[in-house]
Every structure is written in structure tokens, then in C-alpha cells.
């Protein structure tokens, strides 16, 4: 009883602070100085049509590298906690009720969803999209495969090789920028090309392809780990 009333007073106090912040807020009229620089020179310096992609990959590239490493760390922690024993080819102890419509529909849909994910991260610098969105769509395709098919076979080695190689290539492209004298993760080591085509904006499409593959295989690895402990012990 005392605990509930103390909690209520705490929430009321926080609400009062937030209300005063809310009342003082005047909406913005024009862009600030940093955003003005991105708007004016983004097209010439980076060459990507999607300004959010230009900010995430080029102007704030180090933050994206940090985020990719945080995702890698969380996937490693989950893989460490849920120790799965791979003893050869293990069968499901009981085959769950297999529905023919769901299985056939899933076999038709999974390649199309993977194709949509690949489209989203290849065209990340021209239309809304990018590496993280495309990776999440690819992980959703693998989840559909795990749920609908009776005996899904997922190759763990291929998943871990793709993930490690993508992460390593991302850092190597960044170091190439230092070697060629421009700066870490600079995108002008390849030519900028014509505005609005796929092969434009330097290394931005290459970086987003690598990020998309890495995020997709990582999220798939987390969900496959969570599924494989369902039938143990």
C-alpha cells in the first residue's frame, strides 16, 4: 500500500516535469546548421539520393560500425547462454501436425521474401530502405521457414561464415580508406558515378550490402538458437 502510493507520487512528479517541457516547446521553423550542411552539400559530397543513408553510412559511419558490433556481441551472448548440442543429424522426436497448404505456400513464398529483402538493401541509397530493413526482412523469411515446414534444415556453418566474412569486409573497406589517404570509412575511394543509378555514391551500396547480409544472418542465428532448445531436456 505504501509502495503503491510512493510509486504514484514519483510518476506524478515526473509527469509534472515533462508537462513543463511540453508546454515550453516551440516547433522548429528552419533547419539547424548541421542539417543545413547535410542538405546543401550531401548531393555533391556523397552522391546518394537518400539523405538518411548518406548520414548513416558516411557522415556517421563510425556509429554504424559500433551498432554492428553491438549486434554481434548480443548474438554471441545468446549463443553462449543457450548451449545447443549438435550431435549429427538429429530428428524431431515428434513430428508436429503438418498442414499441406501452409507447407506448400511457405515453399513458394520464402524465395520471394528473400528477393524482396535483397532488393531493399541493394537500392538503399535511392529509395527508402537500407541494410537494417533488408536484413530484418530476410530474417522474417527464415522464421517462416522454421514455423511452416516439418523438418527445416538450416546449415549453421554457412550462416556463421557469411556473418564473419561480411563483418570482416566492412572493416577492411574502412581501412582501405585510411591506406589510400582519405580517412576511415570515406566513400570517395570509388568514383561517384551519375546521380540516381545503382552504381553511384562510391562505396555506399557495397557497405549497405555487407551490413544487410550481416544483420540478416545474425538475427536468423538468434532465432534458430531459440528454436533448437525447444525440444531438449
Amino acid at each position, binding site marked *: 500500500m505504501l509502495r503503491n502510493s510512493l510509486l504514484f507520487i514519483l510518476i506524478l512528479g515526473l509527469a509534472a516535469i515533462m508537462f513543463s517541457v511540453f508546454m515550453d516547446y516551440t516547433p522548429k521553423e528552419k533547419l539547424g546548421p548541421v542539417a543545413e550542411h547535410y542538405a546543401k552539400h550531401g548531393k555533391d559530397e556523397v552522391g546518394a539520393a537518400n539523405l538518411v543513408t548518406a548520414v548513416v553510412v558516411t557522415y556517421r559511419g563510425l556509429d554504424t560500425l559500433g551498432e554492428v558490433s553491438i549486434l554481434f556481441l548480443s548474438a554471441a551472448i545468446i549463443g553462449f547462454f543457450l548451449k545447443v548440442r549438435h550431435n549429427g543429424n538429429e530428428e524431431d522426436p515428434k513430428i508436429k501436425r503438418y498442414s499441406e497448404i501452409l507447407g506448400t505456400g511457405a515453399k513458394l513464398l520464402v524465395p520471394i521474401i528473400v528477393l524482396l529483402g535483397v532488393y531493399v538493401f541493394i537500392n538503399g541509397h535511392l529509395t527508402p530502405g537500407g541494410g537494417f530493413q533488408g536484413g530484418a526482412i530476410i530474417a*522474417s523469411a527464415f522464421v517462416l521457414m522454421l514455423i511452416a515446414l516439418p523438418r527445416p534444415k538450416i546449415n549453421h556453418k554457412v550462416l556463421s561464415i557469411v556473418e564473419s566474412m561480411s563483418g570482416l569486409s566492412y572493416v577492411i573497406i574502412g581501412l582501405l580508406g585510411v591506406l589510400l589517404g582519405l580517412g576511415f570509412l570515406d566513400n570517395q575511394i570509388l568514383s561517384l558515378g551519375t546521380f540516381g543509378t545503382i552504381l553511384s555514391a562510391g562505396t555506399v551500396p557495397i557497405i549497405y550490402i555487407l551490413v544487410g547480409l550481416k544483420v540478416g544472418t545474425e538475427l536468423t542465428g538468434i532465432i534458430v538458437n531459440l528454436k533448437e532448445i525447444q525440444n531438449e531436456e
Partner: protein
Amino acid sequence: MIWILISVVLGVVMIAMAVIAIHNKKVTLSILSAGGVSLIASILYLLLAAPDVALTEAAIGSGLTTFIFFYALNKIKKYKHVEE
């Protein structure tokens, strides 16, 4: 003018689903309500002129989070059956 009305209606629905998610006794309904909050937030991001963020929130916040919650809940129920 009509966009202000639409955003107010969406806000009321979102807050109602959040209250249901916190107060309900069953855990299954709470998980689905939290997925619903994320979905309506994705529509709100579209009204705020942010299509990239709307794509990401719909794919990750509303899809993958619900899957992970249900896998964990299933494993807890299996632990309970083994013990009984």
C-alpha cells in the same frame, strides 16, 4: 486539419493498447498488445515524414520481437510440464 484528427485517434488507440498490455492477467494478450503499439507507432512515423524509420519499426519492432517473446514463453511452458 484532418491529419491532426487522424493522429489524435491513433494516439488514443495506442495508449489504450499500452494500458491493456500492462494490466492484463494473461501474458499472451500482453505480448500481442505490445506488438500492436509498435505497429501504430510505425503509422505515426509515416505521418511525421520518416519512411526509413517506419520500415525499420514495422519489420523489427512489430515482427521479430513478437516471435522472440513467443519462443521464450513456449520454452517456459515446457519447463513447467517437465517438472509436473
